[in-house]
């Protein structure tokens, strides 16, 4: 059998193919090293802390005796903090996104607002902590309460929620809106019946990712003065509190080796919560793309 000469790889094509192959392996190498570093980190944390994560650890208050110490107040504090933050930030963020995408005229003012929201998403969290300290803790007199923490966290994640919700709403094709308007629908009916249901998976994913960020943030909480040793559970939004990242930070700052292992245990719990929330986001996106 003979081969058609034109089909044999030419010198130039071979060079192009070599470049393509190089780029592929370069990408694999970069991805691989990122995964490897993450893997080492995870391995260290889990091997340090897994012995400590048990029922006693989950249900005990912090203590100066490592074998008696637990994360109950930090865990419950984090649940309080995230719930209140969600309550404050989700409606505000989603409604702001609806306004900006569906109602606001496209002029310089709204452009300025949108640019500023994008900038706010990049402001270091400690700056939000300072704002929270001045505005909520001192000026509004909320002291070091859960609600002051939740309000600070809400400010922090609001830009993230607004941007994610805006993107999700913007992805809904205009033909859908036009179809509804042509049937004599008001703008609210169009938004309520067609835009929001279609954008919901994207909005929910953005919300969960934003809340995951709130769970992991430490700096603003330290700034507004969340306590590091709490041997009670908050019973109202006005109570003082601590949270998982604070407890972890506190343990790692101690000289004794055992407390570092406790910190690793706390990290495992925190990572578990984050993983669950991210899995939920993936699941919602998957279900949304199917229907």
């Amino acid at each position, binding site marked *: 059998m003979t081969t058609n000469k034109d089909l044999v790889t030419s010198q130039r094509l071979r060079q192009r193919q070599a470049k393509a192959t190089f780029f592929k392996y370069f990408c694999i190498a970069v991805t691989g090293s990122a995964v490897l570093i993450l893997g080492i980190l995870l391995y260290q944390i889990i091997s340090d802390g897994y012995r400590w994560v048990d029922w006693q650890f989950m249900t005990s208050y912090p203590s100066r005796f490592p074998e008696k110490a637990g994360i109950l107040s930090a865990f419950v504090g984090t649940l309080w903090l995230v719930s209140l933050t969600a309550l404050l930030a989700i409606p505000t963020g989603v409604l702001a996104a609806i306004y900006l995408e569906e109602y606001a*005229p*496209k002029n310089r003012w709204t452009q300025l607002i949108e640019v500023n929201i994008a900038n706010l998403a990049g402001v270091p969290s400690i700056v939000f902590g300072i704002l929270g300290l001045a505005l909520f803790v001192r000026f509004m007199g909320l002291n070091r309460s859960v609600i002051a923490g939740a309000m600070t966290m809400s400010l922090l994640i609001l830009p993230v929620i607004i941007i994610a919700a805006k993107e999700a709403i913007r992805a809904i*094709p205009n*033909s*859908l*809106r*036009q*179809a*509804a*308007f*042509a*049937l*004599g*629908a*008001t703008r609210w*009916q169009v938004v309520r*019946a*067609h835009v929001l249901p*279609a954008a919901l998976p994207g909005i929910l994913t953005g919300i969960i990712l934003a809340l995951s960020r709130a769970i992991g943030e430490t700096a603003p909480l330290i700034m507004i003065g969340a306590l590091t040793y709490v041997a009670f559970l908050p019973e109202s939004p006005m109570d003082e509190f601590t949270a998982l990242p604070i407890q972890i930070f506190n343990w790692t700052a101690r000289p004794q080796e055992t407390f570092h292992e406790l910190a690793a245990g706390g990290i495992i719990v925190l990572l578990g919560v984050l993983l669950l929330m991210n899995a939920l986001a993936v699941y919602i996106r998957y279900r949304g793309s199917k*229907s």
Partner: protein
Amino acid sequence: MSDAVPILNALDLSIAYGKDDAVKNVTLPILEKKITAIIGPSGCGKSTFLRSLNRMNDFIDGVSHRGQILYRGSDLYAENVDPVEARLRIGMVFQKANPFPKSIYRNVAWGPGINKLPGDPNERVETALKQAALWDEVSDRLNDSALNLSGGQQQRLCIARALAMEPEIILMDEPCSALDPVSTARIEDLLFELKKKFTIVIVTHNMQQAARVSDYTAFLENGVLIEYGETDQVFTRPKETRTEEYVTGRFG
């Protein structure tokens, strides 16, 4: 030409995007229970003109108009006219079928539902689907997603959705441009039935279609109305040479 009062009447209408006029000084009557076709080359302003008739241009930033559109003698763009009310009476079918990503039933029932139109919703859905010649194909699967229908069926569903509102006028923006000849023929047959009850304005760049289905034809070029008359006359004895050149396929 008939002496009847036009149900819609564009008077010296110009529509501009920013500073550029897309439609220039068009005066065009739309007669009741007739099919009026608007033909012309791409970009001649026919879709812009059509969308102004039920105020769908309101949603496009930077669109302005001069002149008037009269609906049964009163200004469609008057201050006290609610565009939502106008769209209830003047329905629209778009170029690309755009069913809601919901069930077939909900697609048709939604419009009457939100506007609280009287009567039995099930009956209304059935009537609309029958008028759109879709009932026989979907009656046993009304709860299926509308997105599972074929392109031609989707477009007929969009027509049914518009019909369910019992509008007086239906605007159609190249409703067959994305359909195969069989589906196109079905929709053209449908138009003959529909004009007994409704006034139809159809934009098309398919001249055979305009000649087949319409009673009156308007020829637009670069935003200017070149000729308007009974379809027979426009296609067989056009007064303007540009019209003749266009309908005989010498350009466009």
